């Protein structure tokens, strides 16, 4: 019997409904799993692996051939393997591997964060996503975790690739201490890239258009990479002027101020921490007067890893702090935003 088209649905008995399924206990994991899958299969991942991989191989090859020609001088030196990551050929323009990650690494963080939230908005998937039984913060936490996972994977792949190249070119095998130092550096580098991921995600919350958000993140990257030294010099010479007849104290005050200002940038923090961790001979990244450099009163020695870690600790904590602040700002902004544009 056909039902007349205008009959009330009320006329039909409502079937008994089973209890709804229990929502996932940690919704962020479901979001992270999906985002991680997307990231691994994305075109941007392949572009970045290709770019960073080629640059890293170039860097390590340049360093390795320099070390190879100076092998006599290096004989007997411990920690040769990690030096391949932290040193560069002074006669060429090619940076060391660690410096390269400091330079290009931010791109990795930006690439996986700049459209995290505004991408969901422009695809109009956000209302549907947060209408599911998950807390709203599961979205941003899940996306950050997934982004960090993908970035970690890329960084790991490149580090292993470069290690393999170094091993083949130089035939130097890493000692357990080398592996531990590289692992420590890896964590610091990941925190550094995490800062850029968090910053890019903050942009993606604050800026509606993905292209604008990418531009904002790239702008900060370029300012910190290229103009930071210039800006720091200007500000420092204003606050701690160095006249032509400057005393040593004045010069040191100026240099110290420059260093402190530069340490606001995560790039500086990363490179200082990397210097401590990847070179056991580095005892300070602070100001060392010229006479002490040439005629050192410090006993030249090779530091054990725990001492290097202790030296790098302030930088590592500051870097993590910056990352947390950035992520926190994005988190709060996202939680307070209206669903609709």
């Amino acid at each position, binding site marked *: 019997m056909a039902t007349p088209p205008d009959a009330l649905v009320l006329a039909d008995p409502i079937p008994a409904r089973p209890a*709804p399924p229990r929502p996932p206990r940690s919704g962020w994991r479901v979001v992270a799993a999906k985002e991680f899958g997307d990231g691994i299969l994305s075109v941007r991942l392949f572009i970045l692996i290709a770019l960073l991989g080629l640059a890293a191989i170039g860097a390590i090859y340049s360093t390795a051939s320099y070390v190879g020609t100076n092998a006599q001088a290096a004989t007997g030196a411990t920690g040769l393997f990690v030096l391949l990551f932290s040193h560069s050929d002074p006669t060429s323009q090619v940076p060391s591997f660690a410096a390269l990650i400091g330079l290009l690494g931010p791109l990795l963080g930006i690439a996986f964060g700049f459209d995290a939230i505004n991408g969901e908005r422009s695809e109009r998937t956000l209302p549907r996503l947060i209408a599911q*039984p998950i807390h709203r913060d599961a979205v941003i936490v899940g996306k950050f975790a997934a982004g960090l996972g993908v970035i970690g994977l890329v960084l790991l792949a490149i580090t292993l690739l470069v290690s393999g190249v170094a091993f083949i070119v130089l035939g130097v095998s890493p000692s357990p201490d080398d592996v531990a130092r590289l692992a420590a550096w890896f964590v610091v580098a990941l925190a550094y890239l995490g800062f850029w991921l968090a910053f890019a995600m903050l942009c993606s919350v604050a800026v509606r258009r993905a292209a604008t958000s990418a531009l904002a993140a790239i702008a900060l990257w370029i300012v910190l990479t290229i103009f930071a030294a210039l800006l720091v010099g200007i500000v420092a010479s204003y606050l701690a002027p160095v006249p032509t007849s400057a005393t040593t104290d004045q010069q040191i005050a100026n240099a110290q101020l420059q260093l402190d200002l530069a340490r606001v940038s995560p790039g500086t923090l990363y490179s200082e921490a990397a210097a401590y961790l990847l070179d056991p001979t580095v005892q300070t990244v602070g100001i060392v007067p010229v006479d002490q450099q040439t005629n050192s009163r410090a006993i030249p020695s090779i530091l054990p890893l725990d001492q290097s870690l202790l030296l790098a600790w302030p930088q590592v904590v500051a870097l993590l702090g910056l990352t947390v602040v950035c992520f926190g700002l994005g988190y709060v902004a996202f939680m307070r935003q209206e669903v609709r544009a």
Partner: protein
Amino acid sequence: MRKRARHARAVVAPDDGQELAIQTHGLTKAYGELVAVDNLNLSIRAGEIFGLLGPNGAGKTTTILMLLGLSEPTRGRAEVVGFDPTRQPLEVKRRVGYLPDDVGFYAELTGRQNMRYTAALNGIERRAANEKIGQLLEQVGLADAADRRVEQYSRGMRQRLGMADALVKDPAVMILDEPTASIDPAGVTDVLALIRALARDNGVTVLLSSHLLHQVHQVCDRVAIFNAGRILAQGQMAQLAEELAGDQLELEVGLDGPADQVEAALRSVRGVVEVHRDVRDPSLWHVTGPQAIRDHLAVDLAARGMSVRHLRRVGDELDEIYLRYFSRDEGDRGHAA
């Protein structure tokens, strides 16, 4: 004064012992000075299809977001399937399927993959989810397109996928925001038939919003007419028409013959208060009078040797009701100002 009284009666909750799926009490949302939803009292019975009708910007989407706990009300409260969306949003979202206005999907995933993500977010076990998804895709007629990327879907297909997606969690209530917007007319009929079938087959209470009245009246059991954040009336369509007309009735009568004779004949009918000719069609006349004229108008005219070619009660058409409500609303506010 009478108008005000009618307003009040129209918003009283239906007190017939039926279980309510959604109710709001003085729900209000203000953005600074702008009041998007103003003291809203809604009651929607379990199992019915309820239409929230009003022009764009009337506050429909804001209301829906508050019902889902995605936006916090400034004042008042709501109760959806027995839970307060502000305090227990997860409990509400477990039981309510939502199809947003202009729904979006992850373009690089297939329809099926998009639905799997929704199922995972609802904590549905994988095997059960796959079975349910296959069944729903079949129901909405997307079984063949299920494994194509969503970027290849047409708007109508996306809308249908959106409905299947909202049903993955086996909801007690489905909230559809403008389900017929930006779909071609043939698609609209399909979508509406689908809403009706889905509501019936799955025993779901449906709240749908629309700014196009004539499209949704076929599927709605009851409607609320909404403008500038306020409910102007709520009830069954016929009931609303009745209320609006009051004691007076306007009939559209189709009669052939010389205009003066026809007019005289119409005026001679007992009780007729006013007669005027239709502005567009000269063979149509508008006759106003008490409800009773409906019963004897045709007989009286026949007695005078005139046969009625067409007879229609003006105000039954939804769009007319809609427009009248809005003009009355404007009028009320005009007086107040």
